[in-house]
């Protein structure tokens, strides 16, 4: 008995103390950036740079909180009430979802910032193990018998959708646009996928850490990051003959930012992405800057030249691609049969 009361008093006191601490931490203005998986390292650098810049300009100390996860899942969380001031997601379709389901983001969000509100671009490349033991050179090698391909699930991951569309674009070009044959080819590719993770980062750890698969279809920045984290000589990047230009967009979640009194910082934060400093940091973190002029030439030299298709020109934009390929019962559902 006595033991119990004493214990609960101690717990109560601890709870009080902790919540007091938490309240203290909230005293300054804080901005919440809800982002997708492979941007963690970039925004770590960028947030520090922006906070310093903001402090220099206004004298105010700003704390930037980060939340990372699968792009689609993050959009869902914002729709369900996660108090994001800005979203920096993997594809326009996910921000469209927020704009369609709520009025927190204006419908014309993509026009508010330059370059369709995408401050950096990326593309899709292959990552293979040291020495490229399976001799993988291009997309065609991924449908060969016995080659294990790692890519995440396009139903949940933004990166996976870019992967899928890049593969589709390649096959479409090779097979002269015969949709039936292209479908066949893409089906063969996904037959070689032993593990379909829910997010891009999950696939990367499956491939790099757990050692499963022969080739990882990956964001370019993610592939560079693996080389950096696991040693450049353990993995090789293979550049396919054709890929897709991925434009991860950003937007202010106006309703949230306004309610929190953060609208000015939120807008400044996203504009800073386009500044020379922001572009330079993007290039350093393996994102292709939209304005290369201020980036470090050494960083830029790492990006290979690839022929790139575009979602708007070649697939008619995200909402069309979404409906055609990834909606329930659409092409992906028709071709993908889990093997185990």
């Amino acid at each position, binding site marked *: 008995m006595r033991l*119990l009361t004493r214990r609960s008093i101690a*717990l109560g006191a601890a709870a009080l103390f902790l919540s007091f601490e938490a309240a203290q931490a909230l005293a300054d203005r804080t901005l919440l950036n809800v982002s997708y998986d492979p941007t963690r390292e970039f925004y770590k650098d960028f947030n520090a740079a922006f906070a310093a810049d903001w402090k220099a300009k206004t004298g105010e100390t700003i704390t930037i909180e980060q939340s990372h996860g699968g792009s689609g899942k993050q959009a869902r*969380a914002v729709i369900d009430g*996660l108090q994001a001031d800005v979203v920096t997601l993997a594809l326009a379709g996910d921000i469209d979802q927020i704009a369609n389901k709520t009025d927190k983001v204006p419908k014309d969000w993509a026009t508010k910032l330059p370059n369709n509100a995408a401050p950096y671009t990326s593309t899709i490349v292959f990552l293979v193990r040291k020495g490229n033991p399976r001799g993988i050179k291009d997309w065609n090698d991924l449908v060969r018998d016995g080659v294990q391909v790692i890519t995440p699930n396009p139903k949940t991951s933004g990166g996976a959708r870019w992967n899928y569309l890049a593969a589709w674009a390649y096959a479409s070009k090779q097979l002269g646009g015969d949709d039936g044959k292209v479908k066949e080819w893409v089906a063969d590719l996904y037959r070689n996928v032993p593990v379909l993770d829910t997010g891009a980062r999950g696939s990367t750890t499956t491939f790099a850490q757990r050692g499963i698969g022969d080739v990882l279809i990956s964001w370019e920045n993610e592939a560079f990051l693996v080389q950096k984290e696991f040693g450049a000589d353990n993995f090789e990047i293979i550049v396919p003959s054709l890929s897709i230009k991925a434009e991860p967009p950003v937007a202010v979640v106006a309703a949230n930012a306004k309610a929190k009194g953060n609208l000015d910082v939120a807008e400044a934060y996203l504009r800073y992405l386009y500044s020379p400093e922001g572009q330079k940091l993007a290039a350093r973190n393996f994102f292709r800057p939209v304005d290369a002029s201020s980036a470090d030439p050494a960083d830029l030299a790492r990006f290979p030249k690839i022929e790139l298709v575009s979602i708007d020109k070649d697939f008619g934009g995200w909402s069309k691609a979404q409906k055609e390929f990834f909606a329930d019962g659409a092409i992906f559902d028709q071709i993908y049969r889990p093997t185990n």
Partner: protein
Amino acid sequence: MAMSDRFLPLAHAPERATSETAFTKVVLIGIAVLFLVAILFLPLVTVFVEALRKGWGTLFENFGDPDTLSAIRLTLLVAAIAVPFNAVVGLAASWCIAKFEFKGRNLLLTLIDLPFSISPVISGLVYVLLFGAQGWLGPWLSAHDIQIIFAVPGIVLATVLVTFPFVARELIPLMQSQGTSEEEAALMLGASGWHTFFKVTLPNVKWALLYGVLLCNARAMGEFGAVSVVSGHIRGLTNTMPLHIEILYNEYNFVGAFAVASLLTGLALITLLAKTLLEWRFAGELAAKAHRH
């Protein structure tokens, strides 16, 4: 086989049976031990080996990280609210169920078991459906500027829901087997309801209660699924230890991930130790009870 067995001299049968049993026993125990080592012990060791891969210094450095500290603090805070709450409510619910007959008693019993039978992810989603911006209470909550999910209240609620059955499940069978005769005796001796509860009912279940509280605590600190759904994963703010471990792992910070994992495992092991000690005490008391009849 069966036929020939039947014609064996009767005196041999028991001998054969026992030697067969002994062999089976050895094999079964062997399999069980192998299984335990492979499935339970090795992974546990791995956690600590990985955490110490770069030495003790790096391990403690990782604990100094502000995001890690905040995850530890949040986990303790959530447990500090959820566990006492569930202890009190679980005790009250068990008491009602075990000592009284009333309408809806079976429904209450089923409800208590519900968190065990549904997936934690669903427990989390229920709160999103309820308190999310698109949920039933969402508009009202945002109009009053109350944030439940993607904030500490949501994490506490999800944890409370998932860990609710532990105390009640421990207490109900014990209270039922104890019956109401001691309480009736106390009432006949003039004791008030409170006096009866604190002097008779509670002491009779105190070890089981503590045992339930420990299990509840272990789960409250370790819960991943339900909390993941309502957390929002804001670094340094809404990540509990299990969520933070996943994030560190996804950031290629394997040592960091295993450092936090080793701390969580350490807490679990302490809980387990306390539980074992209790079981030992508890067993003594049960034996005394058995002796009485």
